[in-house]
């Protein structure tokens, strides 16, 4: 699909919009529909569109296997780490009230971090799965 000029131009316009929209969904999830799961999937749609049009090799020059593996683990560790942080601050596991003197602010901070962890892992897993499937085509 690399030779189709329409696809290339439209993709170059759309990908930044998709990524921006993903961030909006990620951080606006407290107030409207949205959150880490949706944002992760929408974010992954950008690189996947890039990979479909410009080839998986070029996508892998940004998202290398090593960096994807680190991101997959980092999101889950962030989620679990917030849980341990609340334990060390004297509360129960994932009891965000402890994160700040004001429980409401603590909850806000906790939800922000946890949703970020969800978003990172979901996006990285989706991109990894796509590269694993699409990379298979080339060396058959």
């Amino acid at each position, binding site marked *: 699909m690399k030779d189709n000029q329409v696809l290339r131009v439209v993709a170059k316009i759309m990908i930044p919009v998709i990524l921006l929209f993903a961030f909006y*969904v990620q951080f606006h*999830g*407290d*107030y*409207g*529909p*949205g*959150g*880490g*799961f*949706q944002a992760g*999937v*929408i974010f*992954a*749609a950008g690189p*996947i569109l890039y990979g*479909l049009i410009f080839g998986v*090799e070029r996508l*892998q*020059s940004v998202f*290398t*296997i090593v960096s994807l*593996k680190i991101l*997959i*683990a980092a*999101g*889950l560790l962030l*989620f*679990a780490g917030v*849980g341990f942080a609340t334990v060390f601050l004297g509360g129960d*596991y*994932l009891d*965000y009230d402890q994160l700040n003197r004001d*429980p*409401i602010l603590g*909850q*806000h901070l*906790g*939800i922000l971090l*946890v*949703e970020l*962890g*969800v978003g990172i*892992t*979901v996006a*990285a*897993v*989706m991109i*990894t*799965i*796509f*590269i*694993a*499937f*699409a*990379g*298979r*085509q080339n*060396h*058959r």
Partner: protein
Amino acid sequence: MIAEIINVVLLGLLVITAVAAIRLHDLFAVVMVFGIYSFLAATVFVVLDAVDVAFTEAAVGAGISTILMLATISLVGRWERRPAHRPFLPILVVVVTGGALVYGTLDMPNFGEQSTPVHEHIAPYYLEQSKSDIGIPNVVTSVLASYRGYDTLGELTVIFTAGIGVLGILGIRRRREEKNSEG
């Protein structure tokens, strides 16, 4: 009332796409029909007030899973072999199971009723306390991330494991080394 009519029509369209998925033998067409099915399901979720779920289903069902299935059929071939014999046994199994499930629904409360056990147990607590406990308007997010944080941590672990599993089964070769080792 209009919402109910839209609901009925959309569910009817879902039935049509599901039957089309059975009858087609070209897997490319089946995947396209599945994409339509997911997108219709997402619109049903909007009608049923589940905006967050609709969002996810539209992005995942109609987007990512369609691409994954297309990638798979480009690797394994596009045509399904037609079955040699008539599928009487599967139809019998499906009709009996479906009949049992329909019999089970006869005791269920009507669609949209307010005073059913589902709505009386814990959801009112979430809806009333969310504002003072958590302080954010989207109750789905507050339940997801805070009240049921363990649950979400578990689900994220499943996604993590599935990602690691795909890596283990298919593997990704590094770009540079590939040319040398493959020869």
